[in-house]
């Protein structure tokens, strides 16, 4: 028992990162699943992290309320920015959402409330591993059910051909907006959980680097099913730690593994879609 405790304590943060990054990968998956390239996940994560940390630190709000706020604040922002940005598509949408992250970073750096460039420290450790993995499991189950449903089929139709999907009566704007809001809520939740386990957050954690990292989770894992991005996130989170004994060669080997994975599995590691209810083989 003591050994298990010791193990859990040592790797607590790594395990928590697995869960948090899994949630982020899912938040990326939602938008990719309807063929949108939105890179605002890091910004939404930052919004969730800061909203929750401020509520905990300044108002000492109860944790369930904090978690709820961490999802609602990014959702509200997604609703506001969704209307103009979702008219864009492809690389233009990616650019617009990247700039969202930059704007957030500048605001966080300039604001005294958020501690400026120094960030917020001393956030109590309220999010435990059970909560984080419960959130991830819940999200995975929800996505699996959605994939197997009519909504999942509509999403796949939009991904394959927007015009055809629209002609078949799928409400494109509604689906796109819903995906963006769901993505924002998941990223915000991940941000809040991360903030409440690592005790310190700063503006630079939610910049362009983070946006690209989150995208790479989904790309490595593949977006055939919601499990792909989560597997991708697990691998990319574990690799640097597993390779620790290699010391100086750590980053080289890490990079090589990713390059080979992308070269030989361009569609991701998990390419199999989830069977649909009522689908015939």
């Amino acid at each position, binding site marked *: 028992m003591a050994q298990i405790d010791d193990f859990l304590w040592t790797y607590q*943060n790594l395990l928590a990162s697995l869960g948090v990054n899994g949630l982020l990968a899912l938040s990326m998956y939602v938008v990719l699943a309807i063929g949108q390239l939105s890179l605002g996940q890091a910004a939404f994560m930052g919004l969730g992290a800061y909203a929750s940390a401020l509520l905990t630190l300044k108002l000492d709000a109860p944790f369930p309320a904090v978690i709820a706020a961490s999802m609602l604040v990014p959702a509200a922002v997604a609703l506001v920015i969704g209307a103009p940005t979702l008219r864009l598509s492809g690389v233009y949408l990616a650019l617009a959402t990247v700039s969202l992250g930059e704007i957030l970073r500048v605001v966080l750096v300039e604001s005294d409330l958020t501690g*400026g*460039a120094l960030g917020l420290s001393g956030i109590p450790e309220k999010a435990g591993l059970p909560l984080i993995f419960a959130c991830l499991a819940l999200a995975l189950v929800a996505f699996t059910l959605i994939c197997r449903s009519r909504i999942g089929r509509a999403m796949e139709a939009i991904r394959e051909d927007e015009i055809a999907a629209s002609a078949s009566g799928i409400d494109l704007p509604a689906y796109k907006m819903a995906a963006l809001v769901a993505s924002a809520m998941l990223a915000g939740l991940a941000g809040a959980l991360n903030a409440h386990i*690592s005790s310190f957050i700063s503006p630079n954690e939610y910049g362009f680097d983070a946006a690209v990292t989150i995208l790479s989770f989904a790309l490595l894992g593949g977006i055939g099913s919601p499990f792909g991005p989560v597997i991708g996130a697990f691998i990319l989170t574990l690799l640097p730690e597993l390779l620790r004994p290699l010391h100086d060669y*750590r980053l080289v080997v890490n990079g090589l593994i990713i390059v080979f994975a992308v070269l030989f599995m361009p569609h991701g590691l998990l390419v199999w879609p989830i069977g649909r209810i009522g689908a015939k083989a």
Partner: protein
Amino acid sequence: MTHAPKLSPSRRSVFLCALLGFAVLARGAEAADPITIGAIEILSGPNAKYGFSIKNGFDLALEEVNRAGGVRGRPLAIAYEDTGGSKEQAINAARQLIARTKAPLLLGPTLSTEMFAVGPIANERKVPIIGTSTTANGVTAIGPYVFRTSLPEADVVPVTLRTAQAKFGVKKVAVLYGRDDAFTKSGYDVMKAALEKLGVETLATETFGAKDTDFSAQLTKIKSLDPDAVVMSALADAGAGILLAKEAQGFAPKVRFIGGNGLNSPKVLEIAGAAADGLLVGSPWFIGKTDAANQKFIADYKAKYGGEPDQFAAQAYDALHVAASAINAAKDVTGEAIRDALTKTKIVGVTGPLSFTPDRDPADSSGVLVLEVEHGAFKILD
């Protein structure tokens, strides 16, 4: 001829004997189990230069400690973990060093932002942690097990400003700082407080971003206000850019530019060249300090690594001696005992006398030097 030279049989036996002798010696030294402490530094990525300077400083001091018989009759060893500058990896590294390596003491991490993430963990497990390069405000307020040997900006900057006021009659200044970097922002907070305390008037406060390369707008405004000096909190690149821009705008040489810890770098001189002349910076250490301990440190460092040490190496070198002295003085090798010993530790290092305040910050700022750039080189202002 690309053949590897072959050893003749007799030579080979000499070589083997030497090898054997070596092995025996090594075994003798390792007869006692080493006491392994942990070090968490940035050893990869863009900030690795700081991590390696620090590692060099540790290793040099470690050699000295072990040559002098180690600690408590056992050799001292350091287990290094890399953070790559990331908060998550720093936390993982700290947790592994504490729970797996069972390190009774941690050194590092490199950045103050990493310390804010790692400090609470060390504190939770009652393992003392000593920052050697963490200068931001509030680092030691994390908890009773968090120490630092690096003089916080709050100690260095006031000395520089006081000296400028006394020497050059600085009465009104303009302030220029990098707003989006934790280090430069924290430096600015200290400058603001110090200027108020000294009763120096601040004419204007201008800011820039970490990646800015054009400072002419800010400097045009500052020039029109005619300050006695410009106080800036910037990292080396931006600082050098500001100096070049002020030269281009033709600031009078009597307008002194005063920098924080970030400008105390040879890189500033390299980039800014003649424009850096007259720059004033405060530093906890200087390579030109002539005391015997410092000269020996520099000579040993050059002999071991080939290059010149910097401030980070000097501070790390001192920190390891502090750590060794505390481990020796502690009643046993537990985190609690070492913490208690640390609070009473007093050594004289290459950065000056070192001991801790009750708040676990360095107690003595008499080692702070004010440096002036003259003809493209730092020298001690006297």
